């Protein structure tokens, strides 16, 4: 079967752009808010720097509530909220909002898990020097957990690329949508596999970069 690349090419490049944009925005905002939420989970837990059991309980339940929702359902379920924030429920921006929210919750757990591995003795040492909670978080906890955090974010990156394929469901475009609309639904395996190849390449580059950065920080 012939593939008309003259008409497909612009759609293809736009799709790559959309995927990159959705992933980038999700990683930046989801990464930032996820970091905050993760630090909050870690510090408010029992015995934490800012121990606050009621707050921890609420956050913990909230995260547990959101995380298991399949993204295809989540993207439609938060529709009313997306409408308020983005102004529309259709398009790339409308798909990015639920991506950021889901990533925030997912990343928060990864951040929390990596912070838990930090030895309490190190925190006590910083306290003994007169460091307050904020200083300890910014100058000690994050640097000490940086290597594993980078690997955690790399892991999330792959999940986010995966999730952007679902953005097509709300007209968000992207490579996933391209593969389904122009490949699968038109029985064009070449298009499907080219899209898959680009996604694999993207993930490979991200994984390589993540590993390299983590190795540098861990100095192994």
């Amino acid at each position, binding site marked *: 079967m012939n593939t008309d690349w003259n008409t497909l090419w612009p759609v293809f490049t736009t799709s790559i752009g959309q995927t990159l944009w959705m992933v980038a925005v999700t990683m930046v905002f989801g990464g930032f808010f996820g970091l905050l939420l993760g630090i909050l989970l870690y510090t408010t837990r029992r015995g934490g720097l800012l121990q606050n059991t009621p707050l921890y309980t609420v956050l913990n339940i909230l995260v547990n509530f959101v995380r298991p929702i399949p993204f295809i359902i989540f993207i439609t379920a938060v529709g009313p909220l997306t409408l308020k924030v983005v102004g529309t429920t259709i398009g790339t921006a409308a798909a990015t909002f639920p991506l950021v929210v889901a990533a925030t919750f997912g990343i928060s757990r990864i951040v929390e898990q990596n912070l838990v591995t930090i030895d309490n*003795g190190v925190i006590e040492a910083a306290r*003994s020097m*007169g460091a307050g909670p904020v200083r300890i978080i910014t100058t000690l906890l994050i640097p000490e957990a940086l290597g594993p955090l980078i690997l955690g974010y790399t892991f999330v990156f792959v999940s986010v690329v995966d999730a952007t394929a679902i953005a097509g469901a709300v007209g968000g475009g992207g490579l996933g949508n391209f593969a389904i609309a122009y490949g699968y639904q038109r029985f064009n395996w070449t298009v499907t596999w080219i899209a898959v190849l680009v996604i694999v390449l993207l993930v490979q580059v991200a994984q390589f970069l993540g590993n390299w950065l983590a190795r540098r920080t861990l100095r192994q």
Partner: protein
Amino acid sequence: MAPLIEFRDVSKTFTSRAGTVSALASIDLEIEAGEIFAIIGHSGAGKSTLVRLINALEGVTSGTVTVDGVVISEQSEREARRIRSRIGMIFQQFNLFRSRTVFGNVAYPLKLAGWSKERQRARVAELLAFVGLTDKAWAYPDQLSGGQKQRVGIARALANNPTILLADESTSALDPETTQDVLRLLRRVNSELGLTVVVVTHEMDVVRSIADRVAVMEAGKVIEVGTVFDVFSAPRTDTTRRFVNTILRNRPDAEDVARLRKQYEGSLVSVTVDGDTAIGEVLADAVRRHDLRFEIVHGGIDTLQGRSFGSVTLALSGTAEDIEKAVARLGAVAKVEVLA
């Protein structure tokens, strides 16, 4: 002069889901400026909790802890933080920051205190020279041996020119030789820099090596306190006696006595030697004047805080009358115990 650190009727309980545990009960203790003070006890005796009250890492349940005239147990967290920055602390597991170099670790408290980069560099260089790790400035903690890690810990604890250094089981993770290195360094911290050093340990050897005074703790209470010589030479409690026995094995225990009795005729007599006791002369005299023979069958003499200290057990043989006379004359110059 008022003591530098003072505990007044201090109690501390921990509350958890499992219930309330009393960690410290009515502690009264005074630590003088310039001394090396040891707190010894088995694990769970409350010594690590006690030392954490000095820099308010833990709060008291009742009573007061005064450090250099300030009741630290009643300060706000913010104020406590300020005071804490002037009290150095080192730990059993060193607690170095793995993400920072040796330089970064030592500079950390200076960074917290807002020192300029230039002054930080000069101070860190000075500290690394003091602990003998100048060439390791750019190494990471993972690349150091245990002894080197603790030296970095000490340099970091000294960075902010503290007047007090708290050492929580600081040599318990080290081999005997490295332990002595670190203890020598702590003694220099005390003698050259004039810091008051509070050492928490379960090793009597540490107490003997560096402490001026010692407090013995058991089940959240201080059961004995005094100069190392006084506490070692005349332990008043079983716990202290057992601690002393871990390093001074110069008194025969029941098993030793049974074996000695089988092996030797006559009376077994333990003589405590301390300071300038001269039992040799007394024994020589007894041999000369009476028909008395003696054999040294157990014991040893050690040096504690620059004084001789120990005990020897003698097997005396001769007539009952001569033995009695000799024991009486020994008793006039030393503490004598006739073993049953």
